[in-house]
């Protein structure tokens, strides 16, 4: 059995789980499992100490640190996850369509590996979660997954990896800042909820509820 293909399929299935999950906890778990799979994927290249470092850093950040932070933030907030713009069952159909597009794209690129399709799919799934969910947490997770897709893309490219991987790590750092921002928001209790559909107006001008 090809373990890298198995990991790539795990990445893909985590995207599906993420798009269809109704609970934040399930979304965070899917993102964490995906992070671990992405970290292990680094070994697709010849093993050097850089690869080991990259893998360890990815697993530490994506599979441990971020899920932990997000869980803390989730427990701090009392608000429920608001209903998404797109229903959970319909999300499956959109997932299937996005996956088809990803496979088509990877064929267009002549890098028709499972991982390449998975990378495109992960980017699309991240975007989809960002636009289809209302809560700031879900959107943050969508962003994290989107970044995972960029990372997977770097892994799937045969040679041009280093620059893209660095780009991915940069986005990682931005992600951390993003999560911190949400946490600070919550601790300061500026808002009583994280529903982005409701935080659409400046509170001075109009009531936002």
């Amino acid at each position, binding site marked *: 059995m090809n373990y890298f*293909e198995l990991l790539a*399929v795990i990445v893909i299935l985590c995207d599906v*789980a993420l798009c*269809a999950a109704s609970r934040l906890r399930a979304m965070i778990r899917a993102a964490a499992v995906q992070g671990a799979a992405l970290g292990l994927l680094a070994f697709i290249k010849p093993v050097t100490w850089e690869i080991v470092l990259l893998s360890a850093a990815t697993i530490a950040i994506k599979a441990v640190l971020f899920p932990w932070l997000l869980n803390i933030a989730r427990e701090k907030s009392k608000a429920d996850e608001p209903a998404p713009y797109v229903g959970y069952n319909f999300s*499956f159909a959109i997932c299937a369509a996005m*996956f088809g597009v990803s496979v088509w794209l990877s064929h267009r690129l002549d890098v028709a590996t*499972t991982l390449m399709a998975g990378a495109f799919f992960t980017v699309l799934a991240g975007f989809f979660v960002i636009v289809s969910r209302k809560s700031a947490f879900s959107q943050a997770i969508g962003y994290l997954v989107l970044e995972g897709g960029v990372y997977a893309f770097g892994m799937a490219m045969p040679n041009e990896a280093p620059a893209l991987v660095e780009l991915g790590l940069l986005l990682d750092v931005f992600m951390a800042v993003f999560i911190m921002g949400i946490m600070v928001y919550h601790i300061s209790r500026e808002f009583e909820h994280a529903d982005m559909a409701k935080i659409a107006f400046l509170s001075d001008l109009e009531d936002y509820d």
Partner: protein
Amino acid sequence: MTAIADFAAALLLAPLLPGVINRVKAFFAGRRGQSVFQLYYDLRKLLAKGAVYSSASGFVFRLGPVASLAALLAALAVMPAGGHGSLASFDGDIILFAYLLALSRFVTVLAALDTGSSFEGMGASREVFFSALAEPAFFLSLAVLAKKAGAFSFNLIFLSANPVTGTPLLLVLAALFIVFLAENCRIPFDDPNTHLELTMIHEVMVLDHSGPDFALISYGAALKMWLLGAVVVRLALPFGGGTGGAQSPALFLAGIFALAIATGIVESCMARLRLLKVPALLLSASMLAFAAFMVS
């Protein structure tokens, strides 16, 4: 000859599967449980009884169980549900197989509607809804097999050595196992023990059947489990035609009873899903099969 033996074995041994599942569930619950042969006793008892027909029901109601079992028997003829090939085989029989199963369900639904009971109508509606969602998963799984083996016949697919391997195999097996549980009304989808009207799906439809009709339905359900189980088992175990692997009936029987035990374990460990969650699980099975199709 071997195909006839397989066919006969399926006919004889199919009622053992629900018995094994019940024994596993009893073991997990700390009970002794009913005999493994319980369904045989039930069938004998039911066949000796007379049937009661409501004056509101017509010939469709009487036709239902017979036509349903006939469709399943025809499906068994094209499925290599044993260690060897199938009884009949031609190009495209996997499609026929899927639609014979659908036909069997269709006549059961018609018979349920024919009773004129709103309760049975509700069950029929649910059954059709869920099977409509299970069908894409089943067809996509079959599509993966057909694509890899380059043939539209179960015989050619399963007699070519290990048609699907690696990651696609895992995905297809997961999808087919979910379809197996859904189509046989096992626990994450439907509880075969319950007669609680809010949760019943399949059991509702057959409430009005009695005596020999109900025997045909119970037997048909066991046969359907054997059929769909055979797809999973033939795929999961290293059967092979020309190269490698033995065409072993013993291996097949071990596989299908292992599947029954696995089903019993799933039933013991899980609660029935909320009705609203059932489509999500079926759609995820479709997604698994779709991913397998794309990857393979």
